[in-house]
């Protein structure tokens, strides 16, 4: 599973990455993390409020920092 964190390095992106890593670890997912910081690339995903969370090229969340539990709910059905 490929997980991308979209954001230009603000505090929100760091928090989102922490939540996502925690969620992936708890689910026992084999996930590789990537940071997308270029605004052109971020916008290309259709994300207009950072931070954004992209799983296997699908935007699953944007504009807010979720808790690890919320990310788990998002990741669980995609883990398959």
């Amino acid at each position, binding site marked *: 599973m490929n997980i991308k964190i979209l954001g230009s390095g603000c505090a929100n992106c760091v928090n989102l990455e922490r939540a996502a890593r925690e969620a992936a670890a708890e689910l026992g997912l084999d996930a590789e993390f990537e940071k997308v910081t270029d605004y*052109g690339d971020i916008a290309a995903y*259709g994300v*207009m*409020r950072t931070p954004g969370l992209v799983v296997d090229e699908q935007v*699953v969340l944007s504009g807010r920092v979720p808790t690890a539990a919320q990310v788990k709910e998002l990741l669980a059905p995609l883990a398959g």
Partner: protein
Amino acid sequence: MSVTERVAAHPGLRRWSWVVGAAVVWVAAYWANPYLWDWLLFDVLALDPDSRLGSGVHFFFYDTVKIGLLLTGIIFAVTVLRSFMSVERTRTILGGKREGVGNVVAAGLGVVTPFCSCSAVPAFIGFVAAGVPIGVTMSFLIASPMVNEVAIALLLGLFGLGPTLLYIGAGLTVAIVGGMVLGRLHAERWVEPFVFETRLRGKVIDPAIGLTWDDRLQMGREEVVTILRKIWPYLLVGIGLGAVIHGWAPEDLFARYAGAGNPLAVPVAVLIGVPLYSNAAGVLPLVEALHDKGLPMGTLLAFMMAVVALSLPEMILLRRVLKPRLIATFIGVVAAGILAVGYLFNAVLA
């Protein structure tokens, strides 16, 4: 079943009793605030309300609590209401709009859409890539920070409904006219070419959909904490300076040098306002104290608008997508609008 058991059994009931309870505490605290400080400072500590120290100290504590309460209440309410809107939805609405009507709608949406200027760049690319005209996009980007919830909360609490509506009306006008002017100037010439080459892929998700009431209330609580944590130092410095002006500055000092009679007061206020980025919270207590000392409302509104609408960090971010020519034009157009607002209100309200 007892009342507490019944409430505990219903998540909905528990949620709304929490909201109502918080609202009651808020109203009680707001009401009690002046009496508390009157009693504590003047009765218990026996400070003289007419002395400089007494009135300055009273201003500081009373204003800190009052502004803290206003910010908490209004940020919470606005965040919950705004959770029904999203930048994605705003873009869809603006997509089919032409200039003119589009500028008006964009400025209005700038007020109600949850948006932080830190996202100005991806939003700009997203709007333009979806076919929203540059001028319309600019109206949104000008209105969004100018008519923000912190400024509205503070204006409402410190100056009342009239000046608040005046500020909102003026802010929207600057955003609408500014966007139209930039559109007429064919500002798209000065946008970095990669913006037009950006292709949107994938399905856009709308963050406003699928939220429960608990999510929305939670977002409101988090936003209050985030914003207060960010602005409290500025707020205390602002209120402290306000208290000093309130207690110690001679009555006519500011009015003599920066009153309505001095035509340079408005541009100077704008120049001072620009570097004071995003600190509406720190600036408004100052504005209140200066208003008490006789500075005209137009000059003060221009100062406030310059503080919130023309921020250096946002310009630096926008440089990523806008050529320097457009940034300079953008600043020029918005500054001209703010100056016009300042002079107009000084003339009308004098």
